[in-house]
Each structure stands twice: as structure tokens, then as C-alpha cells.
């Protein structure tokens, strides 16, 4: 007997116990093996031969997206898909020939789609048609029993009844990408899952996505289901209520499409925000696309057409594109001039039509000059010389600080991916970006919104809401999420004061009211009878003046035409709604953009019951489905 050194205790006794334990464990395994492989063998082997148990996924319907009044923007409809299980195809050539005839498709294409899968892939259904129409469905169902291995299935398919109307805002669906599958945010997703890839579909993915269920089924030799073993019902996604008002969205759409016959619709963007709540009431970007094209997997031709289009229809111009703000920037400059005490509301400048500074001449847009102007007139008539003169005294850095307090130069936080930050230049920024100091001459251009300044259309709306309310608001798109277990209200918008005192903002608002309401203002075409509107036009040069000034306006190629801006809020003395309009290559803020704002404001006050329905609104056919 072996002894451990230094003890008198036997080790062998315990080793024997260990050996007995090993023996017992293996005896249990032998018994279990005997039970499975001898006693139950026949039954289990039969199951094996049929390869009969399949797990079939039951897709969860994606949550509905509705506007603030409950009108559907995105829902789910039942689509019929046709698929084949390669293993169950008995006479492949015959089946495919018949299918091709029934579906009006090419045999080679169908055959190629299925390929020659091996292993378990042979049992996985291959989808041949994603959305079968009734004629073809009826044909296939009639011949069902002559087509072993072919099956039709109902599957939920995303449906956007309004088509392109809010395409960028709603966004697109797409198959989950490899890099997404590896990230922790998508830990419980599987390859092939369809998820929101852009817009609200992506931002609201966790709410909209339900929970897939599934079935374990027994199938017979030709793949037809004979018995259901287990079933787990899918849980549908939550219903999401947006702040959007479909009527205002449509008004914006109609305004962009209200062009002389034969001309393409306007491009650009329009945003309307309720300044009291931050609710985004309209967000339009044009040209758009039909999100339905993405719902069942986009086809290569459509995708190519969308990505190669020179006007970039997939780009959400409302948040992802930034442009020089032109004269819309002047109201921010005016507020900064007052706040920094560079001027009083009574300060005057004589505008001879140009301004000389540092050996250069800067022109006013009005060659003959505005004569003697004070602040209100300078805003009303958008006098460049007034802002050149005082802008230089203000300096770029003080202007930048005030502009940033209005939310410019930073994402608004509206909750969509891909928001551009825009740009508020400062001497520090230039040092960092170009390694060069800021030249005072650059302040001259910046004071009228030309230099380096860039706004996104949504920033224009947020900055103007700041002038209207004295507060920088964070726009919100979500009103509430209705889950099966209760309703979750979105938090109220965040707001904090802008860097300009209320009495100064009041002067700016008075100037902006003159822009729209008084003769001689540049924004007369935004007038809504019955409501006082405050606004400011802007025109941003696309190419240098020398290239286009000799041309007749309508002869300038579209891509060289100036961009048109218009920002407005109303009622001027107690603002409720702010509108930001950007018309790409729209030439003039006054004629290109202001009428769009007018349509949106008019629709808003009609709905509020403040003004009677206008003839214009009645004429517009409510068919926003066509692309362009």
C-alpha cells in the first residue's frame, strides 16, 4: 500500500473511490446509450431518415409609423413569396420549365438563382419571387401538386403608402451588413435579417423591430408540412407616432412641384418646426425616392440609377447637406451687432452701392445703392453695405460666438444619423483648418453670409426659432412609442437661451416683419393674409458672378444658378411655427424660396382655423406618389 510521505493515511482508498466514480459515470452513459441506440433506435432512425424536423422562422411584423394625427406613413402588408427547397425538387428541369412558364420568367434565371447548394443548405428555401401578384399566385397554386419542392409563403413586407412624400425622413430598409452583425448593438440579429439602414427606420430600429417567432415542423418526403411540433408566435414591433403633420409635409411637397408646365420640380428642402414644442411638423428633401423599392430588397438597376443620379436623390438635404446661407445670415449678424453694442437700433449707414475696405471693393446686391438705411431698412431690403460696415467693427470671433448660441455650426440633435454640422468660421477655426490667420477682409463676406459659413436647412429653422423665442431648441421627431405593454411619451424638447437679449431680438423680429409685410421688402411672396409673418430671404452664389452676370437668368445652366433660402416664423408677435426653406439652384430667395414657405404657413394657419382655406390649396391634387 502506498503512503503519502509524512502521513499514515492511505491514498489508495481514495483513488479506488475516484475509480469507482469514473466507473459509475461511464456506466450511466452506457445505459443512456443503450436506451437511445437500442431501445428507441427504430423511432429515432425513422425521424432521421425523413430529416423531418425543420425550424421555420416566423417574421415579426415591423411596427407602424404614423404622423401626429395617426395617418400611416409606414406599415406592413402581407406579400406572397415563392420559394423552392432544392432538396425536394424531384425533377428539377421539368419543374423549372413549368415554373418559368407560369411566372413569365426565364428558366436560366430561376435555375441560376437556386444554384447547387450542398449540405444543410439544400434544405433551406431559396426565394425566387419576393412579392407575387395575384395572377401568378393563382397560376402557381393551381399547379401546386405538379410542382414538388415549390412553395408559397406569406411574409410581412414593409409598405409606405405615401411613397416618396417623406422618403428621406422615413429612410430605408436593407439586409444587415457584416460589420453591423459584429457590433454589440446588433448582438441578437442574424445574417439575412432586414433592418432599418437609414432615416427613422434606422433610428427607431429597436422600437420598430418586433421579436421573430418560429415553428418546428415535420415535413414529408417531398418537403410538405405534415405536422407542427412547436410554435412560438412572433411579437410585433411598436407603433411609433411622429411629430410630423402630413398636411404640412404635403403642402411643402406641392410647393416644390408647383412649377410651370414642362419644367422639372424644384430641388431642395423644407422644414417646419413648432417653436413651442420643438416638434418637426414637416421635413422634405427633394429629389426623393420611393422607399418601397427598398422594402423587399432593392434591385441592382434601381440602386444604380439612384446612386448615379447627378442630383443625389438619396441625400437627405434637410440635415445632411450644408450650403452658404447668404443673406439669411444677416439677421444673426444684426442680433450680434445689437448684443455686442456695435450699433443701436437707430444706427444708420449710407449705401452708395458698394463698400471699400482694405483696398478692395465689395458690391451691394443693389448696384444703385439703398441710400441712407437704418437697421430695420437694412434687414427689410437686405442691404449688404450696412452689414459690411458694422460687420468689420464687430469682428469674426464675436459674431461666431453669438452664431453658435443659435445652434449654428453644430448638429441640431434631431435624432437622425448623418447630420452635417454646418460651419461657423472663426479666427481659431481658420488657424486650425488652414494654419493661417483670419484676414479682416474675410469678415466683410462673412457678415453677409458668403465666406466660409455653411448652414443645413434644419439649422436655418432652428436658428430662426432662436430669434422667434430667444431659445435654442432641439427639434424632435418622435411624439410617442406605443408598445404592447404601454405608451412611452417622448421627453419634452431641450431648450436653452441664445446669447442675445430679448429686447434686441425684438428689433430683429421687427425688421424681419418688414421683410414680408411692408412694400419694398424682399419677402413679400411669403405673405399670408390674416397672419403677420416675419422672415428673411437669402441667395447663395454657386459660381462667381463674372461667369453668369452677362447671361439672361433663364439661360444660366441649372447647376450654375444660385441657391435660394428663406426662413420665416409666424405669427410675428407670438411665434408658433418656424419654416426653413432651401431651394437648390432656385436663384432668388424672394422668388424661389419664399413662396414655398408661404404654402406651408398658409396650410398651418388654415388648420388652426385662423384663416379660411385658400384657393391654392384646393387646386392642388393630392397625388404625391409619382417620382418628380
Amino acid at each position, binding site marked *: 500500500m*502506498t503512503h503519502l510521505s509524512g502521513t499514515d493515511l492511505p491514498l*489508495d482508498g481514495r483513488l479506488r473511490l475516484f475509480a469507482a466514480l469514473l466507473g459509475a459515470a461511464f456506466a450511466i452513459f452506457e445505459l443512456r446509450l443503450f436506451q437511445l*441506440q437500442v431501445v428507441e433506435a427504430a423511432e429515432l432512425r425513422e425521424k432521421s431518415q425523413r430529416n423531418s424536423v425543420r*425550424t421555420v422562422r416566423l417574421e415579426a411584423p415591423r411596427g407602424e409609423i404614423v404622423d401626429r394625427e395617426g395617418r400611416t406613413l409606414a406599415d406592413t402588408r402581407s406579400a406572397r413569396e415563392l420559394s423552392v427547397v432544392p432538396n425536394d425538387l424531384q425533377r428539377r428541369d421539368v419543374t423549372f420549365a413549368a415554373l418559368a412558364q407560369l411566372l413569365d420568367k426565364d428558366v436560366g434565371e430561376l435555375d441560376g438563382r437556386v444554384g447547387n447548394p450542398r449540405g444543410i443548405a439544400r434544405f433551406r428555401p431559396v426565394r425566387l419571387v419576393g412579392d407575387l401578384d395575384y395572377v401568378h399566385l393563382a397560376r402557381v397554386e393551381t399547379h401546386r401538386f405538379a410542382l414538388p419542392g415549390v412553395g408559397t409563403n406569406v411574409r410581412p413586407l414593409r409598405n409606405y403608402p405615401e411613397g416618396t412624400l417623406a422618403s428621406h425622413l422615413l429612410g430605408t430598409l436593407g439586409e444587415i451588413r457584416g460589420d453591423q452583425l459584429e457590433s454589440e448593438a446588433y448582438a441578437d440579429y442574424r445574417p439575412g435579417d432586414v433592418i432599418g439602414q437609414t432615416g427613422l427606420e434606422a433610428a427607431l430600429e429597436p422600437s420598430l423591430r418586433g421579436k421573430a417567432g418560429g415553428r*418546428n415542423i415535420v415535413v414529408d418526403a417531398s418537403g410538405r408540412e405534415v405536422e407542427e411540433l412547436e410554435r412560438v408566435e412572433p411579437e410585433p414591433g411598436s407603433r411609433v407616432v411622429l411629430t410630423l403633420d402630413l398636411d404640412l409635409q404635403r403642402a411643402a411637397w406641392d410647393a416644390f412641384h408647383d412649377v410651370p408646365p414642362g419644367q422639372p420640380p424644384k430641388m431642395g428642402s423644407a422644414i417646419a418646426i413648432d417653436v413651442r414644442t420643438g416638434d418637426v411638423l414637416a421635413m422634405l428633401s427633394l429629389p426623393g425616392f420611393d422607399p418601397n423599392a427598398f422594402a423587399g430588397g432593392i434591385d441592382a438597376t434601381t440602386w444604380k440609377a439612384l446612386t448615379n443620379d447627378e442630383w443625389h436623390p438619396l441625400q437627405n438635404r434637410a440635415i445632411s447637406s450644408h450650403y452658404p446661407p447668404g443673406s439669411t445670415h444677416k439677421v444673426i449678424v444684426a442680433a450680434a451687432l445689437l448684443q455686442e453694442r456695435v450699433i443701436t437700433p437707430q444706427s444708420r449707414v449710407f449705401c452708395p452701392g458698394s463698400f471699400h475696405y482694405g483696398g478692395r471693393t465689395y458690391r451691394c446686391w443693389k448696384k444703385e445703392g439703398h441710400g441712407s438705411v437704418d437697421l430695420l431698412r437694412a434687414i427689410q431690403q437686405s442691404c449688404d453695405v450696412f452689414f459690411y460696415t458694422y460687420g468689420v467693427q464687430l469682428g469674426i470671433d464675436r459674431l461666431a460666438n453669438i452664431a453658435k448660441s443659435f445652434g449654428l455650426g453644430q448638429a441640431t440633435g434631431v435624432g437622425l444619423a448623418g447630420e452635417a454640422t454646418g460651419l461657423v468660421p472663426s479666427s481659431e477655426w481658420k488657424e486650425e483648418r488652414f494654419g493661417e490667420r483670419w484676414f479682416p477682409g474675410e469678415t466683410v463676406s462673412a457678415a453677409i453670409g458668403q465666406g466660409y459659413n455653411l448652414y443645413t436647412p434644419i439649422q436655418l429653422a432652428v436658428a430662426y426659432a432662436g430669434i422667434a423665442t430667444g431659445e435654442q431648441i432641439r427639434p424632435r421627431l418622435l411624439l410617442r412609442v406605443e408598445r404592447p405593454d404601454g405608451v412611452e411619451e417622448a421627453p419634452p424638447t431641450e431648450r436653452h437661451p441664445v446669447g442675445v437679449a430679448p429686447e434686441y431680438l425684438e428689433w430683429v423680429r421687427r425688421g424681419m416683419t418688414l421683410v414680408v409685410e411692408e412694400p419694398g421688402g424682399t419677402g413679400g411672396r411669403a405673405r399670408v393674409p390674416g397672419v403677420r409673418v416675419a422672415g428673411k430671404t437669402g441667395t447663395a452664389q454657386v459660381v462667381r458672378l463674372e461667369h453668369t452676370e452677362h447671361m439672361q437668368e433663364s439661360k444660366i445652366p441649372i447647376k450654375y444658378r444660385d441657391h435660394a433660402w428663406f426662413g420665416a416664423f409666424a405669427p410675428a408677435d407670438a411665434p408658433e411655427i418656424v419654416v426653413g426653406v432651401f431651394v437648390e439652384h432656385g436663384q432668388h430667395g424672394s422668388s424661389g424660396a419664399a413662396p414655398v414657405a408661404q404654402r406651408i404657413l398658409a396650410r398651418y394657419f388654415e388648420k388652426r382655423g385662423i384663416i379660411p382655406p385658400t384657393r391654392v390649396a384646393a387646386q392642388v391634387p393630392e397625388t404625391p406618389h409619382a417620382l418628380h
Partner: protein
Amino acid sequence: MLSIDRRVFQHFDWLLFALVLAVLAIGLANLYSATQAGVEHGLPPEFRRQLTAIAIGAAVVTVVLMLDYRRLERWAPALYVAALLLTASTLVLAPLTRGNRSWLVYGPFSLQPAEFTKLGLVLLMARWFHRHPPGLVRRLRDLFVPGLILAGPVGLIVLQRDLGVAVLTLLIGATYLLFVRIPVRAWVMVGAAGLAALAGLWSFVFKDYQRKRILDFFDPSRDPLASGYQAIQSRIAVGSGGLTGQGYLEGPQTQLQFLPTQHSDFAFSVLAEEWGFIGCSVLLLVYLSLLVWGLVIASNSKDGFGSMVAVGVVGMLFWPAAINVAMVLGLAPVIGVPLPLISYGGTQVLVNLIGLGLLMNVSMRRYIF
């Protein structure tokens, strides 16, 4: 430094060698069957990687045999700490794969350092129980130090979120408890404390999917679609093997790849389907012989450290084997534990071969006192 005594090789343990070769051969043949479906030409990549791991293992074992295992008693603490550090590094360096962080990737090589902690654990435990003979351990408080030795790797692996390996490491360490002399009522207390700890783990540490797996085991109808699917398919594969099996490379469940991890965790079900009751019994018998022979080696060693190393290596092989086979046969929940030397997995093969090398080392030096 390498003192090679000719007597050592005269006592080469041919039985141990033959048993290990038999297990490896069965494992490789089985892995080939599990992975060859769908491979157009050449050997399946998993098969080639497994061969590489065995070759590396053989080389390391040759070196291990040159060393007198008694040197390892001195090195045990350093090896233990090194294995822990390697494992800890995964918490910082490793990407999250399938919900846990337990892999280190160096170019084409990927390692599961947690496997190495088993070796460190066995060596350090053997050293402690050599210095504190288990027959003299009569009170629970005497187990404080071994408890700490065990808590290191188990704690780290819990942090890696690798439930299966954590339980396994705990069991390997607990193997030594078979040899201590602590009265029954003390064990009752330990049991109560263990249950309390388990309740704590359940509420605060386990992730939802881990709770789900355990609940699925106790009630297969909870999620019959996911975890249950594997269990059902495994049962069908095992049962359909019958007495003599469906034939090598002929198992329909295997060749159609119905089991998602048939080359790793469910390797035994492949064997069961293709070789039947007889094939399974042969493998189990070879396994049992290997383990019992390990205990004989422990008994024959004239040196307490050698005995305790041998016991540890037996535990290191037995627990994963028992849990894996029980899982495949539907006697235990589906937790990711490979079948030693049979399942696909380079680190596992390497570590188990080194363990068997230690066993051989102890066996070869049984007469040199």
C-alpha cells in the same frame, strides 16, 4: 539542465501511449467525417488545423518528457500566475465573440488562454497538497489556500462570461476534495453556502442567454426552437446510430450538417450516429481505461507531488468528457464544453496533450527513487 536518465526511457509507459494514440485516432477520423461534407478537394480546414495542433502538442510533450516533473513543483506558482495573466489579457485585448471574451488572436493562431489555467491550477494544487497531505486536511478552514488558488482562474473565466469553462475549472479543482478528510456535516455547510452563491450568480452575474440555457435544460419546451433544436437533433443523431451505426461518412444527420457545432461540441453525436452503440462503447472504454490508468499511475508514484499531478490530470480530462457526453446524450444542459482530444479545438488538444505528457512523465519516473 536537462538530466536525461536512460532508465527513464526504459520505463516508457507504452499502455498510456497506446491509449492516447487510440483516442487521437478516433478523434481525427471522426473530425474528418464531421467536416468533409461540402469540401471539394483536399482536407477540410478544421482537420488540417487539428493535425497542426496535435503536431505542436507532440513537440511540446517531447520537451516535457525530458524535464523531471519534480522541477515543476518549484515552477508551479510562476506557471500558474503566467496562465492567469494570459487569461486576464483577453479581457482587455480580445474581441467579443458570441457573447464572451475568451480568445486571443495572433495572426493565423487563435488561443483560448483559459485552457492553460487548467494546467497552472493542477500544478499549483498538486504542490499545495503535496506540502499539506490531503489526509491531514480535516477542517474546512484548512482549505482556505486551495480555495484561493481555485478562485483565481474561476473568477477570471466568469469575467470572460464563459459559463461552461468556469464550471469546468471549478470541478477540476474540486477533484482534490475527494482526498481530504473533512467530516460530513462540514460538507453540508459548504453545500448551503454553495447554493447561496449560486443564487447570487443567478441573479447578478449570469446573462439572460445563460439563464435561458439552464432553464431550457430543465424544461425543454421553454425554447424548443433554438437550444432545444440542438438537443432534439443530437438525440436523433445518436439514436439513429442504432447498435452498429450508419457507417463511416454515412450518417445522414452528420453529412447534412444538421447540428451547428457537430465538429466541436457535438462531435460525440457524430460518432454515435456513424458507429452506433458499439463504436460509442469502444470510445468510452478507451477513455475509461485511460482515466483509470491515470489513477494507477497516481497510486504507483513514490512521490506525493507526482500522485497529485496525476490525479489533477485525470480530473482535467474526466470532467469535460463527462459533461460533454452527458450533454450530447441529453443528460446535461447544452453548455459549450469540448470532448477532450475528440472535439475540434487547437488549444484544448494542446493543453490536454501537455497534461497527458505530465502523466507520462510521472509514470516514467516511478522507479527512480
